[in-house]
């Protein structure tokens, strides 16, 4: 019997290795129909007419839905998670290539696809704006003429501009660097999809959806579709990876729901890979200018950032309301600075809508990349070793809790210890000597360092909400008469292993075996309300809720145990999974024994209800701040520009680890993401707005050959405010690893005097950097 924290094999694996998972695509209902979306071939065009007559005449077609159909139901537009609106099916014009124009419902998905070919749409093509840097030019094509007379979305700033400028004026050294974090895509292997089943008799809508936030989706469906919320049930069954891609509601979901309402039959819609890459929530697309002010001795004094954010055709970024640029405000990184300021301007372009997604912790990925790249630029200018420069500037352990220049309070940390461990694991000093020897032989070896601090676990309800819904999460714990338990959580897993780790939390608090705790999630009719799994928030928020609800159960058990032992509750002690009278451990009662008694005819004190079940809603007092030190070693072929990642050392500190095996697995995955983004991934566009990353032939992802055998280390600095001292970790490696890889490649290119080149560092980009001609990676070169 295993109890408590530590390596435990996952409960969920038994079904997955047998091919018995139930993903949305695996849901087959009697009489089910299939949907398909007709998409715009144009990045920007006015819709002159849509002729659906031939499609409707197809013998297997049951419905053809257009924007006009939806308009009649007040569904042509839907709100985005950023308070903008997005066309469900275009009525006036199309604003990006791949935008949804019509929806066919047919007896099978081959027929649905056939019928798309029968729809005749007449477009009047318009000039498109694909380059965010041209979006605010006078005369630039106007993307959102439905609501605005410019392509400007918002300006947002953080920090103290005046003070920062003052430090820059006084500084001995300043460096500046423009950099692009290219548009990338989370690309989970399971694409997005839904099975919608509207029961015309009961009026109840049941959907099985690829949703990372089933409760929030239920509320939004209610608001958008006008259905009473208790008549909507959202089920997120097994999800084939999310990474942020499955946070928003997509037009196809609403089309399938409408299709079910119209036909009276269930409708399944699963997008294909091109639809996934071309139309669903992308990430990044931040054009950044970073500046550092420093002293000659390498003391970093201030950071200044300007950002141009490309949000595409609709502002569909998913983030807390008060933070239009996400948590980019933590761009001060892991360093003790005198001043900091950033200014972010967001614009519309004729590109797919969204933003934020892809394991980014609400844009901390961009912030960490910016500051970690800038530290290396400074190291380059001052000719100081980049690890040494970081060590000189890292926050010291005694400074925690530390409030940074932009107002974020880092909860706990011992940064130098973590960096030192990474350096020791890497054999850093020896690596540098080896690098020198290899350079002498003409070999290009690079060593890249990054140090990141994340802010995860959104969040304190006072400051953080999505469309007015506070980011707190509920939990329910039931203990059955025979002493096994059911935990119902608001968050759900897309591979994170909640069924295992959340059982471990309860088991640890109550002295049960984790196998005796069943975790129920991903079904809004079965679980309490909460905001879902993204931004590494499950453990910081719902994990905390779970520990607290288990402690509530334990306190209820104390009263019952006292009645059983005919003692005063205050005289009882909890230890080793039992309540016992102080000094008499042999008389102790386990939770199982107490649970039976709590359901029995045992006489309880007045006002005590019996049973042990409890609920809790957790409103976190602060975010948690995991951190880590990463070192990447690369070899670059000077003839081809090809980069090989030889080693990757990652030391993560995410506080207390509930299940180290699962933590390490999550770190592995994030490191592979980092290699992908740094070296391969980009959704590029041509000047006309045509998407050039619409399949896995063009949007490259790392395989087993690009990834080295990861070398992991850990330090443990508990979060002081989290009930079990844990911090989030799911996105740490995705956030922290790209700058380590890029810094390594740039370090390798030092003999050529290269100070920066933009991701993805494909062979072509590296080769051109060697030639002194790095190019922009977001637009195709004509």
């Amino acid at each position, binding site marked *: 019997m295993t109890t408590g924290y530590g390596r435990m094999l996952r409960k969920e694996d038994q079904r997955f290795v047998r091919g018995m998972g139930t993903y949305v695509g695996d849901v087959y209902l009697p009489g089910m129909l299939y949907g398909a979306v007709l998409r715009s071939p144009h990045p920007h065009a006015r819709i002159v007419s849509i002729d659906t007559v031939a499609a409707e005449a197809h013998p297997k077609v049951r419905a053809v839905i257009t924007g006009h159909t939806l308009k009649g139901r007040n569904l042509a537009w839907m709100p985005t998670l950023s308070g903008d609106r997005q066309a469900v099916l275009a009525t006036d014009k199309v604003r990006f290539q791949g935008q949804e124009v019509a929806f066919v419902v047919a007896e099978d998905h081959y027929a649905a696809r056939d019928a798309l070919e029968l729809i005749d749409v007449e477009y009047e093509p318009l000039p498109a704006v694909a380059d965010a840097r041209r979006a605010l030019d006078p005369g630039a094509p106007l993307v959102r003429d439905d609501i605005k007379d410019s392509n400007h979305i918002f300006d947002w700033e953080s920090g103290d501009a005046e003070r920062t400028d003052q430090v820059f004026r006084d500084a001995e050294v300043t460096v500046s660097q423009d950099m692009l974090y290219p548009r990338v895509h989370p690309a989970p292997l399971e694409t997005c999809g839904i099975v919608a089943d509207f029961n015309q008799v009961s009026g109840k809508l049941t959907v099985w959806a690829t949703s990372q936030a089933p409760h929030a989706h239920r509320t939004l469906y209610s608001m958008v579709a006008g259905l009473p919320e208790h008549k909507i049930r959202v089920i997120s069954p097994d999800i084939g990876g999310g990474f942020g891609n499955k946070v928003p509601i997509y037009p196809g979901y609403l089309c399938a729901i409408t299709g079910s309402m119209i036909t009276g039959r269930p409708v399944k819609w699963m997008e294909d890979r091109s639809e996934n890459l071309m139309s669903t929530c992308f990430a990044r697309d931040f054009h950044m200018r970073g500046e550092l002010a420093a002293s000659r001795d390498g003391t970093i004094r201030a950071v200044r950032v300007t950002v141009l954010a490309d949000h595409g055709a609709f502002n569909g970024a998913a983030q807390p309301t008060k933070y239009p640029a996400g948590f980019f405000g933590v761009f001060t990184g892991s360093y003790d600075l005198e001043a900091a300021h950033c200014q972010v301007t967001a614009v519309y372009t004729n590109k797919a809508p969204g933003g934020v997604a892809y394991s980014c912790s609400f844009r901390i990925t961009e912030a960490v990349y910016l500051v970690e790249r800038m530290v290396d630029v400074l190291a380059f200018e001052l000719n100081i070793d980049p690890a040494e420069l970081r060590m000189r500037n890292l926050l010291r352990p005694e400074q925690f809790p530390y409030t940074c220049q932009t107002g974020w309070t880092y909860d706990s940390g011992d940064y130098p210890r973590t960096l030192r461990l990474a350096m020791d694991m890497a054999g850093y000093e020896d690596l540098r000597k080896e690098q020198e020897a290899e350079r002498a032989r003409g070999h290009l070896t690079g060593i890249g360092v990054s140090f990141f601090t994340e802010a995860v676990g959104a969040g304190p309800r006072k400051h953080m909400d999505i469309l007015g819904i506070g980011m707190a999460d509920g939990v329910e714990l039931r203990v059955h008469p025979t002493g096994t338990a059911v935990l119902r959580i608001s968050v759900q897993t897309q591979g994170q292993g909640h069924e295992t780790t959340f059982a471990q939390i309860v088991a640890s608090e109550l002295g049960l075996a984790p196998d005796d705790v069943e975790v129920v999630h991903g079904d809004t009719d079965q679980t309490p309300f909460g905001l879902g799994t993204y931004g590494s928030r499950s453990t910081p928020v719902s994990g905390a809720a779970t520990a607290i609800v288990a402690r509530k159960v334990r306190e209820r058990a104390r009263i019952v145990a006292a009645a059983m032992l005919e003692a005063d509750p205050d005289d009882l002690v909890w230890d080793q999974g039992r309540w016992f009278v102080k000094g008499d451990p042999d008389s102790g009662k386990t939770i199982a024994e107490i649970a039976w008694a709590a359901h029995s005819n045992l006489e309880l004190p007045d006002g005590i209800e019996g049973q042990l079940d409890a609920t809790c809603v957790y409103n976190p007092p602060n975010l948690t701040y995991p951190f880590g030190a990463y070192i990447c070693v690369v070899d670059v072929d000077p003839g081809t520009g090809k980069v090989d990642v030889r080693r990757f050392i990652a030391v993560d500190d995410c506080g207390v680890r509930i299940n180290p095996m*699962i933590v390490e697995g999550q770190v592995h*995955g994030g490191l*592979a993401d980092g290699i992908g983004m740094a070296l391969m991934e980009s959704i590029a566009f041509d000047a006309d707005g045509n998407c050039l990353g619409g399949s896995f032939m063009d949007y490259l992802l790392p395989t087993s050959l690009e990834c080295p055998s990861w070398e992991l280390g850990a330090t443990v600095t508990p979060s002081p405010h989290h009930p079990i001292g844990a911090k989030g970790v799911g996105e740490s490696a995705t956030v922290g690893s790209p700058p380590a890889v890029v810094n390594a490649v740039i370090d390798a290119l030092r003999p050529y005097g290269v100070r920066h080149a933009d991701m993805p560092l494909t062979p072509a980009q590296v080769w051109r950097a060697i030639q002194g001609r790095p190019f922009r990676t977001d637009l195709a070169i004509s």
Partner: protein
Amino acid sequence: MKVTVTVNGTDSARDVEPRLLLIHFLRDELGLTGSHWGCDTSNCGSCVVWLDETPVKACTVLAAMADGRSVRTVEDLAKNGQLDPVQQGFIECHGLQCGFCTPGMMMTARWLLDRNPDPAEAEIREVLSGLLCRCTGYENIVRSVRWAAEHAEDTAK
């Protein structure tokens, strides 16, 4: 057209459209949903099954091409309730997270181990390089296959 495919040892005859893909035949016609569809372009390998003795990407094979041949899917890995060492290895070494790529990975790994019972890490990486995983960074998948190699005696036959 009529096709008869021996799937996991059982003959399955269906009248299908000539264009029907094998992955849809398995999932929609036979209800074998363990094999997944992920990309359309033979890049991700979520749909890998065996056609006769060779792993294929079932999203780019027509059901008609499997007519008269045998197909083996993930549902056939465990025998008499006992897991194949590859399956057990994925559990032991945390070789899966969301589980979506796992069937394709395991079918490919089983094929490798049948030909080389003791593959080195480099060979495992080479053989799995036609399949994508977005969760694990591959490390634990490689370890899982090694685990299976080291516990070959447990092979369910």
